[in-house]
């Protein structure tokens, strides 16, 4: 009689090597970066040349400031700010006679004051040249596009005659980025 010894170790091996759940390998590349708060004028300057500032003719107003020359003058700058905390301010500097030195004689004027507005992103910053320094700084936020500068309310201190000479001034618009950093998330 043939004696066959069969060892069913294979059954045990199958149990112990039972297929595990498939294991995957996962790669993750995290990317981060930042963008700094900035403002930039892409059209940084314009010029308002009004020519003769005094009224002509022979009437009682002759030789005095022609307010129509300045009032309503407008120029369009262009710029942007990329942060929500950005602000805008404007500083109007008086038109000063650069040809005449010293205080004007009584009845004469060497200084012309005016108001300046700067409209950007539907908000308007204003200043008057009667006081030194910029006007109130206001939030302008995130914007790109026009910064419209408008002159109004021109006047002299006493309504006197303008001293002959070259008058110059500046309107300075300042865009300030401030810091608006917030956390980004996917």
């Amino acid at each position, binding site marked *: *009689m*043939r*004696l*066959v*010894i*069969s*060892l*069913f*170790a*294979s059954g045990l*091996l*199958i149990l112990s*090597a*039972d*297929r*595990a*759940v*498939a*294991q*995957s*390998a*996962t*790669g*993750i*590349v*995290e*990317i*981060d*970066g*930042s*963008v*700094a*708060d*900035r403002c*930039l004028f892409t059209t940084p300057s314009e010029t308002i040349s009004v020519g003769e500032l005094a009224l002509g003719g022979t009437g009682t107003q002759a030789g005095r400031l022609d307010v129509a020359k300045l009032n309503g003058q407008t120029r369009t700058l262009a710029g*942007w700010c*990329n*942060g*929500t905390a950005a602000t805008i301010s404007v500083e109007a500097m008086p038109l000063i006679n650069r040809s005449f030195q010293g205080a004007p004689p009584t009845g004469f004027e060497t200084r012309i004051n005016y108001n300046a507005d700067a409209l950007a992103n539907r908000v308007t910053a204003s200043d008057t040249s009667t006081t030194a320094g910029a006007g109130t700084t206001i939030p302008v936020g*995130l*914007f*790109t*596009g026009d910064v419209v500068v408008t002159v109004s309310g021109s006047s002299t201190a006493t309504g006197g005659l303008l001293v002959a000479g070259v008058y110059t001034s500046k309107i300075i618009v300042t865009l300030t*980025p401030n810091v*608006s*950093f*917030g*956390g*980004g*998330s*996917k």
Partner: protein
Amino acid sequence: MDKFTKLALAALSMTLITSPAEAQSVNGTVDITGSVAPKCLVLPGAGNSFGTLVALGELAQADGRLATDLSSRFSSIGGTGLIARVVCTSANPTVAVDALEITSATPSTTGYANRVDFAARVALSVTPSGIDTISNDSRNAATGPTALSGRLANNGDSNIMITADTFATPVATDLLVAGSYTGRIDIVIAPGL
């Protein structure tokens, strides 16, 4: 009984005792089986994850638009963290790649962008030779799982390289809003059962 008779009986007796029996064998059989689970692992260490953080820094160039060197910056900053060695026990592993756009929580408006899209590319060396590249654009859903053309190369060297390119804002002229930006590339290498 005479002398000859006694000898004959003795001889017969010896013959009966020493006559060969019929041959009888026994056999032993050991059956052995086993299995190898389908799995993918990261070497060295047999882990299951790889990757790095790529801190790109300032994303905008001087004019406020998206920087144009982000692809090279991605590779140089990511460095060795962008390469890995992954092996799988199965013949045709699958790879899924999902590029998640780089975004900021800061809201954007017309002319601005708070989102940077890009293409992620994962190059995988396979045996006996060749490179399979699985790509995904962050504007699209994940790519794959896609079966590789062969087994992942197991030659002791890295067999995966991750790159990223074609970084872009939705509109090319968009200015980036200030803020922190984050994005991600997810890669899943599965045994492909």
